[in-house]
């Protein structure tokens, strides 16, 4: 099995790309691949805990928690999250907080990289 690293930049609400990213992570993990997921930009706001799932909007928390339970490593850009008012104490447990070099380090040993830009 391989290692897949995904950098995700779009936000949770207002883009189906974020949903697609989490589903792709889930599918890869289910096949036995090692998956690393990096959040930067607007995606870094999605690590906030206690999201209310309104049916008109996407939710990240339920899916992120499930991915963590499957062994997916998830890390958010600390500066990006803090800039959006999300602190580590508010965040989904198990999500790592680090700087951009975490992403580069995962890229170093990954077999495939999917860099999913924002905007």
């Amino acid at each position, binding site marked *: 099995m391989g290692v897949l690293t995904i*950098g995700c*930049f779009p936000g949770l609400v207002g883009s189906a790309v974020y949903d697609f990213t989490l589903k792709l992570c889930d599918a890869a993990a289910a096949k036995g691949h090692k998956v690393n997921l990096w959040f*930067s*930009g*607007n995606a870094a706001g999605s690590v906030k805990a206690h999201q209310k799932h309104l049916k008109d909007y996407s939710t990240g928390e339920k899916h992120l928690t499930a991915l963590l339970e499957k062994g997916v490593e998830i890390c958010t850009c600390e500066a990006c999250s803090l800039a959006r008012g999300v602190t580590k104490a508010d965040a989904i447990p198990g999500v790592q907080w680090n*700087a*951009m*070099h*975490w*992403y*580069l*380090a995962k*890229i*170093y040993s*990954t077999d495939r*990289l999917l*860099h999913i*830009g*924002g*905007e």
Partner: protein
Amino acid sequence: MADVKLAMVVQNPQYKGETPRLGITHAISYQTVEVLLEDGETITPTLCFVDKGVLGITKNQKAMEAYGITSTEGHLKNALLVDLDVLVCKEDLARYGIAEDQLVDAAEMGADKSIQVVPYSEIQKAISNAKHVLFF
């Protein structure tokens, strides 16, 4: 024990969104990635500006006055100071009427590197030589 080459390609204008700037800061972070790697393992990004990405990389930016944030100019100077290769597409500069002497320079800060204005074919080579390509 190897070097992994990356091409980080900025194709959107600075200040319109956050992502183009994140291209620069992600590239700069190669300087500290060694704390998470084994001895002898390195990452070498080449930072490339193409299409509308060539907008917003000129001198004398007033981002702090206008927006209250640090400028792309400052980030680019930092990129040059940490010896990143920064390539800018010559054809796209011409398309937007930007002269080479308008581009950010960090020589006064002691940088050994300068922005390299190159034909698109050179940027294609950097992309071809990279193990992974990241578009911002």
